[in-house]
């Protein structure tokens, strides 16, 4: 029984060790130096739509099949990628613009670097020169 318990613990630790964290990055013109998890949720719920200097917020998602999108959905919202996609599809039908989708971490960094007000997330091992880090998700 004790061996089985240790095995389960090791498997659990291995799972966390394999999963990288995420960095929440933003364009250099965003005035905030950091944001809370609650603010991040409201940005991706399209409830908070401007930064403190009135600059429009442009949230960016990875594609639905990516590991980063799955991690973000579970770490921030405790929901599956499918459930969140349903939420954003409903918003789109209501005339709101859901997060922009980029297909790689490099694309997310490029988009965020170039678009004022943009915010996105990437694997914490990805290169992210030219953007600011607002939050680390682990």
């Amino acid at each position: 029984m004790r061996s089985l318990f240790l095995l389960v613990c090791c498997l659990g630790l291995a799972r966390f060790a394999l999963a990288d964290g995420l960095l929440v990055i933003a364009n250099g013109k965003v005035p905030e130096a950091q944001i809370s998890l609650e603010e991040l949720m409201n940005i991706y719920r399209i409830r908070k739509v401007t930064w403190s200097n009135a600059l429009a917020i442009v949230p960016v998602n990875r594609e639905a099949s990516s590991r980063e999108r799955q991690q973000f959905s579970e770490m921030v919202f405790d929901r599956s990628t499918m459930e969140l996609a349903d939420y954003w599809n409903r918003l789109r039908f209501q005339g709101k613009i859901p997060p922009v989708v980029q297909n790689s971490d490099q694309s997310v960094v490029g988009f965020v670097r170039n678009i004022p007000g943009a915010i996105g997330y990437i694997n914490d091992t990805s290169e992210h020169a030219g953007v600011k880090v607002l939050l680390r998700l682990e």
Partner: protein
Amino acid sequence: MQVGDFLLSGYGNLVAEAPNGQPARLVVDDLSLYVNGSINRWLNPFLEAEISGANLLHEGGADNSAGRLVLERFYDDVHLSETNTLRLGKILSPVGDWNLIHAAPLVPTITRPLTTYRGFAEYASGLSWLHESDYSGVSPDWQIYWQPDKELVQRPDSVSPRHHRDVFGAHLNWSFGMLDNAGLSYQQGEQLVTGQRYTLGGLNARKVVGRLTLQGEATTAYWSAEPAGGRSHEWGAFLVADYRFTPYWHGIVEREVYQPHGTDAQSRSNLLGVAYKPNPAVVWKLEYVHQQDRSREVPSGWSASCAVLF
């Protein structure tokens, strides 16, 4: 698809219906395109137009309608502040949840419950003020709207035989997290042709518990006197349970009771269905409706559909 300041998207819904005792048909139920502009604080236009009811095949060849082009929504949003928006134009009336989000890929059943459209103005053309609450979710979002005259670009009678004027309404919505919500609705108006006035109240709720999503709405409305002295109280309610067996397969059960005004013919229907969602933008559905009463609007029979968001 993003084109400059505009986001182009839409959905299509192909439906095969085989109601008991009536001809079967294959129909493009909706082919809808929406254009969503985000230009500045004052100019945020939204347009939704669709081709509705285009018969591809009809048993016996009796009806091969090419469908109708319908202007569903056309409005501009003026952002007064981060939480307040003034909306001018043609909107979907916020009565319940389903009427606001009725796109086929986003609703659980092919057969739309009568409660979600039958007894009120589904659209309002005029002014609307929307307020989003603070982020806590304790205080509700609200919307008030007013249509001073007739519907802007009225839908053809073949799409909707009932039209309204002089519509006023309000809606309160409490959001709990991303997926759960509860709402209260009020609407008053006048039905064209008959000249009857109505006052409607409604409530709606949606709750996700693990793999189970429960969604329901109820309305009650009082109509001014019927010319023939018929029933003046109209009411309806439905509850749908959507259980996610796997990430892709859903089982669906629904019960609805609806009592129209002006007649004693009630609708009491039960629905059993399955849905397959290989990804968030595609839904295949198959369902059987059993009508226990005399309603011709929701007949017993099979339906199947494929709905795609793009």
